[in-house]
């Protein structure tokens, strides 16, 4: 059915020129599992891998040995004997990551002041985009460490389940433009010496805005925000630079984006949006992984033939064998599977027709969920095999 080029994932993870793999996709498509399975397969193929997961399901986290969230990559035990590579995994703790950024960029006194600020505490644990921004921040840190110490040669990143699919691309820029913007200077102004005079630089509109803010937010919140902004003032450059560096890293040829989707209309529509956004941002897209595709084992039997045979068997009930009813049900099951498989293939074909140059591969659905390394290894094998 496929007219698209094949996405060869084994070649991708074997390519030493690839240093970062970013898995993105809508929620519930198996992004985290795919990232972990690819990481494991790469490690067992000789790469030194670190997998950054954002919010893994509990049992998957246990499979990776991630029992606590300590924001540091930990070695994953249980790689096949003879594996020349290594696998570390970590779960992102966004507040901790934010705290570390503050501590690294402000002097101890100022850092303490920021960490204690109520507005900062709210921002660092819940503000829209923190998770995305901190995932990118962590990616930057891991990359720097990899280059400095040679700890890893491949970083596999799972992306946050964002409200809009590519928030992780937008968040750093948004934060940057916010920190650059007039609004932050307006907030910072009154906390500085001669704040009123500083305000005069702006138009009358700013004064009106300041009064309005005070009215809407309440005086106390405004004061907290101002203290926070003033304390952060010295770090702004650092934030923006780091965001820019990470954003630039994502555009490098050593990065590969993988879009993960399930073979359903909505997930593939989201995947199409991802693919188009990545192209618009000149981000290096490696291809699409269609996860959990329904496949049939009795490939030579058509759906229609199976259904007809099942009906015939049911007509001859008298004198039928012990297994006749079972055979009939197996035929009906086959018809159902084949119909689902056909429908899913049609969805995938539609995507491929609209994006003929995007390499793609498919991974068959599994009977049960993954919760150990053996399961991840099987998913990894399917990812690799699918390209063979």
């Amino acid at each position, binding site marked *: 059915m496929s007219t698209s080029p094949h996405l060869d994932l084994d070649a991708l993870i074997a390519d030493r020129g690839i240093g970062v793999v970013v898995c993105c996709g809508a929620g519930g498509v198996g992004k985290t599992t795919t990232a972990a399975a690819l990481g494991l397969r790469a490690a067992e193929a000789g790469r030194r891998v670190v997998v950054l997961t954002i919010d893994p399901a509990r049992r998957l986290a246990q499979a990776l040995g991630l029992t606590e969230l300590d924001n540091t990559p930990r070695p994953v035990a249980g790689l096949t004997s003879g594996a020349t590579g290594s696998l570390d995994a970590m779960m992102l703790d966004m507040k901790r990551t934010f705290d570390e950024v503050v501590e690294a960029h402000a002097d101890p006194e100022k850092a303490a002041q920021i960490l204690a600020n109520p507005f900062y505490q709210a921002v660092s644990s819940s503000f829209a985009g923190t998770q995305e921004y901190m995932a990118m921040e962590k990616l930057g840190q891991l990359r720097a460490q990899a280059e400095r110490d040679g700890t890893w040669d491949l970083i596999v990143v799972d992306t946050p389940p964002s409200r809009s699919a590519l928030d992780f691309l937008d968040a750093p820029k948004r934060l940057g433009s*916010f920190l650059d913007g007039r609004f932050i200077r307006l907030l910072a102004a009154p906390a500085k010496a001669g704040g009123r005079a500083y305000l005069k630089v702006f138009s009358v509109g700013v004064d009106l805005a300041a009064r*309005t803010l005070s009215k809407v937010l309440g005086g106390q919140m405004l004061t907290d925000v101002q203290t926070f902004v003033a304390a952060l003032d010295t770090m702004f450059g650092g934030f923006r630079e780091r965001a820019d560096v990470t954003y630039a890293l994502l555009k490098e040829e050593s990065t590969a984006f993988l879009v993960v989707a399930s073979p359903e209309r909505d997930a593939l529509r989201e995947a199409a949006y991802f693919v188009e956004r990545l192209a618009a941002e000149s981000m290096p897209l490696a291809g699409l992984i269609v996860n959990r595709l329904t496949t049939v084992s009795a490939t030579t039997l058509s759906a229609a033939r199976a259904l007809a045979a099942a009906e015939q068997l049911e007509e001859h009930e008298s004198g039928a064998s012990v297994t006749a009813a079972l055979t009939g*049900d197996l035929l009906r099951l086959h018809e159902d599977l084949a119909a689902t498989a056909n429908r899913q293939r049609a969805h995938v074909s539609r995507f491929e027709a609209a994006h003929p140059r995007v390499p793609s591969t498919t991974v068959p659905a599994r009977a049960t969920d993954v919760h150990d390394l053996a399961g991840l290894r099987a998913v990894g094998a399917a990812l690799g095999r699918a390209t063979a």
Partner: protein
Amino acid sequence: MTLVSAALSDLRLHVVTGKGGVGKTTVASALALALAQSGKRVLLVEVEGRQGISQTFDVPPLGIDERLLVNSGDGELWGLAVDAKAALLEYLQIFYKLGRAGNALEKVGAIDFATTIAPGVRDVLLIGKVYEAVGRTDGPRRGQGACVWDAVVLDAPPTGRVGRFLGVNAEVAGIARMGPIKNQADSITRLLQSTNTAVHLVSLLEEMPVQETIDAVTELRSARFGLGLCVVNLVRDPLLDERDTDLLAQTADLEASIKADLDSVGVRATGPMVRGLLSQGRDHADRILLQDEMATELAETGLPLIPLPALVDGVEEGGISVLAEILAEVLDTPLASAP
């Protein structure tokens, strides 16, 4: 046991959540349609900017004004995609009469700040708009006249974020201990925790969605939100019965016997074909077993389980109406939920 409400159809606000990918929007849409078809004026609201409603009902993207989606004789179904920025400007206009000042805020980037970066404010705005719709009346002032909407159905953020989304109070507590934002958050929380509101969870009979559903039930209960239904989406009827699975597990010479059955109806069965059919059968039997376990785990939440079938053609081609018919059957079910 806290009685959420006499019945589903008496609720003013339905909040629909679930793990990503389980079909929240589909279920929210079907529920809203069922309510509308029972003769109510219903508003279906989405807050994540995904345009899921317009895709489900196959209409052009929704804007910031309510739009009629379905007119079912007695009832009406309207749709709305809430936009945080528009909600903030509207809010400023209504509560502070800030025509020009609103523009000034926009110009200095304060609106962007509030709607995309400031902690919690975005959620307060989005859910604040839902709150406004629930309480909207046709009289000259809020609280006067009849309610404009008999019921509001919210296609809410996924389970991973819904606790934070609904917990607007806790979210703004750290930044606004008093003042107008705090007051607004308090009123919203009163509505959300009242007997007029229920949170419905959508799940699948798969391990990860079930685990997330159970976690969300615990989280939402401890935050004192009333829970409604647990809708189990995409349920497939088992195609093998108990006798089949016993045979699959026990019978020796199964291959030969099945080959003979197939031959008897003229299917030229090869070894790989028979083994393929058997392996499909065993996988299916495993799946049924897993689904039963999952259903048992979901039942332990104490929520009424409402199974919705997997539709062969998805929600296209009137699939939503099929699901709405099933949900219409449970509109009068009494709801009760342990706190």
